[in-house]
């Protein structure tokens, strides 16, 4: 359902360019749970942004055949000066959904209480993660893109995410960037190791984790 074909991405850096991705091929089908592994700055977040369509590849092609969520990460995706409720209203409007349903789900899932009436810029990163998860789970996507963020939550939040993502929505595709070997081993059935702009897909997660550990 998601096909990346020879995707490259480079950014201007001084007089030259920094090549972050140098030709990545990847296919993710419905129900696949793919872990992205790589050191800081290897390009995990960049690849997730390209898959989400937040940024566009320098060359190559990305095809999405079903609905793909926005990247759930620490930053981005919110209007900081608006309250949690206003962000929920905005999301429900652009996705054409009933606000009351989204609101109920967000209140219940995020457990942010009165904080939802505060501007998002006043939130801690854990609170942002809660809101981001709540909003994207309130919309039924066929593929969820998760960038690290799951790890900032407390035990209770992690349990909820686990239930919503890996039990209730086990048939959906999931792309999950993380440094945590434990989480990747637990949740992913394949893993992509990104290094020096090249990406290698390992059908065996343990093998991928070994390669990653040796980087």
């Amino acid at each position, binding site marked *: 359902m998601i096909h990346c074909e020879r995707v490259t991405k480079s*950014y201007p850096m001084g007089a030259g360019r920094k090549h972050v991705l140098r030709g990545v091929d990847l296919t993710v089908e419905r129900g696949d749970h793919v872990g992205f592994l790589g050191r800081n700055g290897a390009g995990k977040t960049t690849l997730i*942004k390209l898959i*989400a*369509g*937040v*940024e*566009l590849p320098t060359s190559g092609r990305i095809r999405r055949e079903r609905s*793909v969520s*926005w*990247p759930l990460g620490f*930053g*981005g*995706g*919110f*209007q900081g*000066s*608006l309250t949690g409720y*206003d962000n929920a*209203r*905005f*999301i429900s*409007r*652009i*996705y*054409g959904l009933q606000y009351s349903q989204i609101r109920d789900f967000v209140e219940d899932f995020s457990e942010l209480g009165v904080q939802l009436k505060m501007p998002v810029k006043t939130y801690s990163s854990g609170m942002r993660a809660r809101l981001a998860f709540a909003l994207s789970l309130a919309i039924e996507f066929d593929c969820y893109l998760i960038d690290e963020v799951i790890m900032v939550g407390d035990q209770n939040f992690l349990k909820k995410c686990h239930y919503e993502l890996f039990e209730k929505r086990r048939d959906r595709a999931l792309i999950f960037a993380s440094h945590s070997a434990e989480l990747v081993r637990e949740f992913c059935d394949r893993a992509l190791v990104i290094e020096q702009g090249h990406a290698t897909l390992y059908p065996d997660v343990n093998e991928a984790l070994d390669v990653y550990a040796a980087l």
Partner: protein
Amino acid sequence: MSSFAAGWRIQRRVIGALMIRELVTRFGRENIGFLWMMVEPLLFAGLVGILWRYMKGPEMHGVSVVAFVASGYIPLTLFRNSVGRSIRVFSVNGSLMYHRQIKVLDFIFVRFLIEMIGAMMAFLLIGTLLIFFDLFPVPADLGALLAGWFFFCLFTFSLCLVLAPLSELSDALEKLVPVTTYVMIPFSGVFNMTSWLTPQAQKVMYYSPFVHSMELMRYGIFGSRIDAQWDIFVPFAASILFLLIGLALCRRIRRHLVVE
């Protein structure tokens, strides 16, 4: 056809959501809320109108000073605000790129739309008020007034579409915009009719797309009491040209846009 209808539905939804988002961030929900968007053009047109009334007397070239100034200042604030709002619009709205149904043209258009609606509300209000006090004529030709307004808006928007991407490429542009919009006032036709000028100046004014729209608007308001002259081809051709350049530039900027 059904995919076109679906696309249109999404488009309307996105524009509506972006408008509300922009209005809430800019004006909040306190006191008069979104009605603030017409306050600035209203105050400008009203206060400057009164100022001119006492500086220049009740009439100039046979038309009411207040009406002439009001009908000039509202398009002028529309132009100045829309141009100002389109600067750095890509970087400011980067977070919207998280949602694929939102395109860069949507938020450029929405910012312009808010200015346009605010200016139209102000125009309507001040016009009605002044007609009531007999300081503004009942529009002689409503069609001409609306057509003039349409071409003024079209050209302003096409200019925003060029300036928005250019402002991302060059920081200098941001600094140059306020002074440029000020210096262009004499070439905009908002405070004078072409027929009041010398033949030489008239020739120069012919190339200003704003002038033709303003003349048409003025004709719509004052009718034959003023000598209005316009050639709608000028603003139309200039708008089409700027729209095409703007679309190409926006596409280019979007490709290279870096989102946090």
